[in-house]
């Protein structure tokens, strides 16, 4: 059917801030959808609160609203825009839930707005566990025995009836939040309670566990004409029991016979047809490894993380096709954009193996509970493509950018056998390395299978690689073994390690023996049809399909997997760099390893290499492409870290020279520059021994800021207030102290700000200064920030501009850089310089209208700022005020302390803009899901040294009608100042009393928690427990008084003054 002509304007709802379970994949799908709809001639209105996205670029939609995703806010936009229809199925669970809420509010009926794509009734049938179960039973599709419960008692009764283990799945939560496997009555009681509390409809599905089954996923598409097809089948390496988002996944399915595959394919198609899905859909199935028995796990009636992975794994653009289906087009009339010759009604055939490995945040959260289960914990993922399963797996490991560069992990190597077995039985993020270690120790496949239930085929991939390690080690410099090693994905680095050589020596031998990678095309059809997709992966085989085009090309290095500290912002900058290069007539070549993002959409760049971001892989691409140079400024620390190695191998780094990148990052050189320029910075010292660190701290005087050199996102950075705390820090970071120097800085308590500057060597442009709302001490990625600054005088701004210019010129910056300042008593101190794009680039680009990454790219390629129409200094500040608020994923990560400090913890961000600071704040808080009632109850749990500062805050809460709850000390203090305070008892006192602080929280009597007990970092400390309880109960939590002040500003703004006359 041709596209619909009765609708013209379509609203697309984005997925909001990035959190665990809902990440960059929805920027990819949303962007594709918007572009697809515009390609068909529709006017597109986009709403999303996340500024760090390509989809919120004004070039993607006709109108872009960066507004909170709340019913109020989206309704306002609807009343302004009058769209004919809304497309809700491409913005993840958030987009879908928003559409459901809008429908419920009545506005869609009132204004005759249609929901496109899958109908609401179908969505409910798929998402509501009970209705879905009914449907399955009607179709004769097996589902594990289950029951929807609304109370813990019902859960326990059913549990006793069907027996353990049992899985709890809360209704309408994303990423399986709040769910888990329970092995007994007590565990069920705890998890069911938590799940019920997290479910917006207070419902959980209690289900018999099928842990140990094979977990298989199908990405399915269907159109309004009932054409249905499979895009991709994926098989989890880890059996059922671990959330698929936390599982290692292979595609195509590896262990299914045709009978099994077709049986499950039939089931998926029956489900999608019965549900009348119009668009993309994800079906998860569990197959008994010992029979034809299978169970339906779930169906996601929308585009998902898995569909982004499937799109990149097959080349088939699911979201784009889903958008076209939503406007009435059918699969047999849409051309397959990959081949250009066949139609979208085509089940892709793969002639390679794809491996996905999740990227977990446990390097940032060493104290977090790392055990994997039904709740997803990964923040991102990598994908790798190879011609053998071994190669795909190893390339994926190399892409992870973790300490392990291959299957050898020192921690696993040092573990005792019993520790190792424990790691195998209770899977954590690092199980893969323990599997390899088990084989190294001589465990048999059978033994490991017994412990893990992982299929022998998969186990053997690991076992094979361990065998090969030994073979390689035994035959140094043997070209035959080298050839074999490359075929199975061993990196030069790993081979070098096994041969006790340098990676360069291996590379040299490899080149000498003509052992070079070839690049194969991802074409959806296994070469059956001619394609010209510019999408390649490397492998060691005979025919190379990627050829240098003859155009002048530039390689842009992406930022790899999404992790805390390096999020989707860097993908945004990468994509803009590509756009600028294309506009300038260059062939833009992207290298990246992240399947979720826009930059790995092959239609974005002129050529995409889906490769690990290691020196070896980037050099190989450069050898083939002979680019003008490589741009490393936009891919975060990932690409910057590659610069020196690339240069050492003769690759030209475009923009700021490697020498100058080093000067910015090397502490001593940088200190020299600061001195020469006569700038101020917090006093700092460097030490390499424990004693040296302590002596330095004592010299500077506590508090001090300690951190290892070369860090990302404040990893391992802490503010230390005493010698005892410092000792503890050194104890925790012993390995770092030995290998790398530790930096000790005087901790300055002032206002922090972020500045991004673009410099061509003459002119230095500051698009804007972002003032942090929290005082120094909270990581810049975790602090709220406002643009333009609200408390800086013109004099301060002038000083910042001047210092920025001096630094940019002194560092010979060519391109973009980022500086963090502390402003105290009118003085400006430099804390840190990053000689690259920072995470504030998308935010500032959007509000200032200066496409910073594009301007910087032009500078890098030789076009002066003046030629581009920009002049020196701080760009004029607009009328609108914009606030950025961080968003966290604490509810997915048990045992992570939610107290904010110098180490970054947020996973995403939202933006709020308005004409006043207070309104902008309000929107930012609303976007971050901190919408508070007009009056309510606030719990104040304050560290002693904050007591004086809490008083004005408490008074303001009281004035706008908030009841204050506090424990004894704080309560007495506030009562002395005539405030009405309700007393709550401490965590471990009167535990059964209603007044116990935890019970108050559990009972839902508290609307907001302010907790500044930052020293309570131990899991059994009051401060920590209170924070955890707030997170568990979904109660907004603030850990800095500055944030409380900002929140009050926004609340006061909407409240009336209530003052007596006398």
């Amino acid at each position, binding site marked *: 059917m041709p596209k619909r002509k009765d609708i013209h304007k379509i609203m697309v709802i984005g997925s909001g801030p990035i959190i665990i379970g809902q990440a960059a994949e929805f920027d990819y799908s949303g962007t594709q959808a918007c572009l697809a709809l515009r390609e068909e001639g529709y006017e597109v209105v986009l709403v999303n609160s996340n500024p760090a996205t390509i989809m919120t670029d004004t070039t993607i939609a006709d109108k872009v609203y960066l507004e909170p995703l709340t019913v109020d806010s989206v309704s306002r936009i609807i009343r302004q825009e009058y769209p004919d229809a809304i497309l809700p199925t491409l913005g993840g669970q958030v987009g879908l839930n928003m559409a459901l809420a809008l429908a419920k509010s009545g506005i869609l009926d009132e204004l005759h707005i249609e929901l496109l794509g899958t109908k609401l009734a179908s969505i409910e049938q798929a998402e509501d566990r009970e209705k879905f179960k009914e449907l399955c039973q009607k179709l004769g599709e097996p589902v594990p025995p289950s029951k929807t419960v609304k109370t813990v008692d019902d859960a326990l009764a059913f549990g006793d009836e069907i027996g353990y283990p049992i899985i709890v799945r809360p209704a309408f939560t994303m990423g399986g939040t709040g769910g888990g496997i329970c092995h007994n009555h007590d565990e069920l009681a705890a998890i069911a309670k938590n799940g019920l509390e997290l479910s917006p409809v207070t419902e959980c599905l209690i289900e018999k566990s099928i842990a140990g089954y094979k977990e298989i996923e199908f990405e399915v598409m269907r159109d309004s*004409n*009932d*054409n249905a*097809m499979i895009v991709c*089948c994926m098989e989890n390496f880890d059996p059922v029991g671990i959330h698929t988002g936390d599982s290692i996944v292979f595609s*195509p*399915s*590896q*262990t*299914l*016979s*045709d*009978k099994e*595959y*077709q049986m499950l*394919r*039939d089931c998926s*198609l029956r489900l999608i047809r019965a549900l009348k899905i119009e668009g993309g859909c994800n079906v998860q199935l569990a197959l008994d*490894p*010992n*029979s034809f028995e299978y169970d339906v796990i779930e169906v996601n009636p929308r585009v998902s993380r898995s569909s982004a992975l499937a799109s990149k794994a097959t080349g088939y653009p699911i979201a784009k096709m889903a958008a076209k289906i939503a406007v009435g087009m059918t*699969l*047999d009339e849409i051309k397959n954009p990959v081949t250009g*010759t*066949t*139609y979208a*009604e*085509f*089940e*892709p*055939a*793969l*002639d*390679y*193996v794809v491996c996905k490995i999740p990227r977990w945040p446990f390097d940032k959260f060493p104290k977090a509970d790392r055990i994997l289960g039904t709740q997803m914990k990964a923040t991102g993922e990598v994908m790798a493509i190879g*011609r*053998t*399963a071994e190669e795909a797996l190893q390339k994926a490991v190399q892409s992870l950018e973790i300490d392990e560069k291959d299957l050898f992990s020192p921690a696993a190597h040092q573990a005792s056998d019993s520790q190792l077995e424990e790691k195998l039985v209770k899977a954590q993020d690092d199980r893969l390395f323990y599997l390899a270690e088990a084989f190294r120790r001589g465990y048999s*496949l059978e033994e490991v299978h017994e412990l893990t239930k992982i*299929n*022998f*085929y998969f*186990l*053997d991939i690991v*076992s*094979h690689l361990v065998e090969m390690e030994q073979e390689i080690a035994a035959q140094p410099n043997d070209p035959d073994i080298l050839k074999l090693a490359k075929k199975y994905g061993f990196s030069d680095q790993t081979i070098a390690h096994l041969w006790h050589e340098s990676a360069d020596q291996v590379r040299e031998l490899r080149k000498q023996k003509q052992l070079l990678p070839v690049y*194969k095309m991802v074409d959806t*059809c*296994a*070469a*059956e*049809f*001619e394609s010209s997709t510019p999408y390649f992966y490397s492998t060691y*085989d*005979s*025919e190379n399909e990627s050829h240098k085009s003859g155009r002048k090309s530039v390689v842009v290095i992406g930022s790899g997997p999404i992790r805390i500290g390096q999020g989707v912002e860097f993908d945004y900058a990468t994509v803009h760099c590509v756009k600028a290069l294309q506009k300038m007539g260059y062939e833009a070549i992207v290298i990246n390893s992240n399947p979720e993002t826009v930059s790995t959409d092959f239609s974005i760049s002129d050529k995409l290499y889906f490769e690990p971001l290691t020196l070896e892989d980037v050099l190989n691409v450069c050898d083939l492409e002979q680019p003008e140079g490589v741009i490393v400024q936009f891919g975060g620390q990932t690409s910057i870290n590659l610069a020196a190695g690339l240069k050492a191998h003769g690759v030209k780094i475009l923009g700021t020279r490697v020498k100058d990148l080093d000067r910015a990052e090397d502490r001593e050189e940088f200190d020299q520059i600061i001195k020469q320029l006569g700038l101020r910075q917090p006093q700092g010292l460097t030490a390499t021994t424990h004693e040296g660190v302590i002596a330095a701290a004592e010299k500077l005087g506590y508090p001090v800021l300690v951190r290892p050199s070369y860090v990302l996102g404040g990893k391992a950075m802490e503010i230390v207030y005493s010698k005892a705390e410092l000792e503890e820090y050194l104890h925790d970071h012993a390995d770092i102290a030995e290998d790398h120097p530790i930096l000790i800085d005087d901790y300055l308590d002032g206002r922090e700000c972020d500045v991004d500057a673009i410099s061509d060597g003459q002119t230095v442009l500051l698009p804007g200064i972002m003032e942090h709302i929290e005082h120094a001490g909270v990581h810049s990625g975790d602090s709220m920030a406002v643009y333009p600054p609200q408390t800086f005088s013109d004099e301060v701004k002038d000083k910042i501009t001047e210092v920025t210019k001096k630094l940019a010129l002194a560092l010979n910056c060519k391109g973009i850089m980022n500086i963090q300042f502390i402003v105290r008593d009118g003085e400006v101190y430099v804390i840190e310089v990053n000689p690259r794009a920072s995470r504030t680039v998308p935010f500032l680009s959007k509000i200032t209208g200066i496409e910073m990454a594009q301007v910087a790219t032009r500078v890098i390629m030789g076009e002066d700022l003046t030629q581009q129409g920009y002049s020196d200094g701080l760009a004029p500040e607009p009328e609108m005020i914009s606030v950025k608020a961080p968003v966290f994923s604490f509810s997915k990560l048990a045992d992570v302390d939610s107290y904010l400090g110098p180490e970054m913890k947020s996973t995403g961000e939202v933006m709020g803009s308005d004409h006043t600071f207070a309104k902008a704040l309000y929107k930012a808080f609303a976007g971050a899901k901190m919408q508070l009632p007009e009056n309510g109850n606030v719990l104040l749990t304050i560290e002693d040294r904050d007591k004086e500062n809490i008083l004005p805050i408490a008074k303001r809460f009281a004035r706008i009608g908030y009841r204050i709850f506090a424990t004894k000390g704080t309560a007495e203090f506030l009562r002395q100042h005539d405030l009405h305070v309700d007393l709550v008892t401490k965590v471990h006192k009167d535990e059964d009393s209603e007044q116990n602080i935890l019970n108050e929280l559990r009972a839902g009597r508290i609307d907001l928690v302010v907790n500044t007990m930052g020293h309570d970092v131990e899991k059994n400390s009051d401060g920590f427990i209170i924070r955890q309880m707030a997170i568990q109960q979904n109660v907004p939590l603030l850990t800095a008084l500055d944030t409380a002040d900002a929140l009050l500003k926004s609340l006061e703004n909407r409240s009336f003054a209530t003052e007596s006359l006398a």
Partner: protein
Amino acid sequence: MLRYLILEDGSVYSGEAFGADTETIGEVVFTTGMTGYQEAITDQSYADQILVFTNPLIGNYGVTLADYESLEPQIKGVICHQVARRPDNWRMQTTLPDFLKQLSIPGIQGIDTRALVKKLRIHGTLRGKIANSKEEAAQIASELQQKQVTQGVISRVSTKTPYPVPGAKRNVVVIDFGIKHSILRELAKRDCNCIVLPYTATAKEVLALHPDGVLLSNGPGDPEEMVAASQMVCEVEQHLPLFGICMGHQVFALANGAKTYKMKFGHRGFNHPVREIATGQIGFTSQNHGYAVDPASINRDNLLVTHVEVNDGTIEGLRHKKYPAFSVQFHPDATPGPHDEESLFDDFMQMIDQRKSELHA
């Protein structure tokens, strides 16, 4: 051990030997199916062919007796990128290399199959030899150019003597051009009482059995060699409901005056979308054919095109305008491949039942 694939154009691909240690000659073709290597290898339609798997990894789940498509596969060789080291499946009885050894079929792994497939796509199907030495490659290539590798192949794969596949309901005569077991399984599922006849069966012999319907099976090679069979069909279709699959479809077309042609590199795999013209419905089909019916040759007075391939428009289904007879180029019996068109067997049953009721009316 090294082993070589030498093509008629003189190109040589080297890899590692597996399966039987023999040298063979065949027509080199490729399949894009990502599962079902065992079903493909045992499919008689691949007789005299060397099959290249585009899926880079085969053998992952071993081989099981239950999934044979014929007991004496006639495939000449298997080319793949890699064979799994440690297959695993609850039904597995042997491994793929051992299975090939038993059947005297040689295999080569470690070949850049994507490069090979691109060659076949561009040049069309080529003859090739699996050899243990590449020394006489040029000589072998020129010999290959002269050789007719698939001639008379049906006479070798078709049953020599009739045999029954007992059932209780409808009586169906099956003409064996190289039948896949899955066709018999589908008929058995519908409780048909089948008698399988050699491809040489005459109309008289067929009609003498008084069946309720006739099924023309799949098979290898050039359909235009099936002159006698098409004469048989010409006669039988006037009397009995008839269903042709793959080779059976081509013979049915020839019987009704159409022509067939050799395709450049054929359709082998199971992601081919086929549109049923009457309903517009599209199904994914399992395909294995190197020849197709020429659309220009169809006499529109007696044949109706019912199905076409969505991407290249190849004729995928025909129906007789006067008689209860129809045929499809693809495999509704799937195996390997999707079950989307399985209901065609039900259509055949319905056709039989309707005719029976008409006769008794």
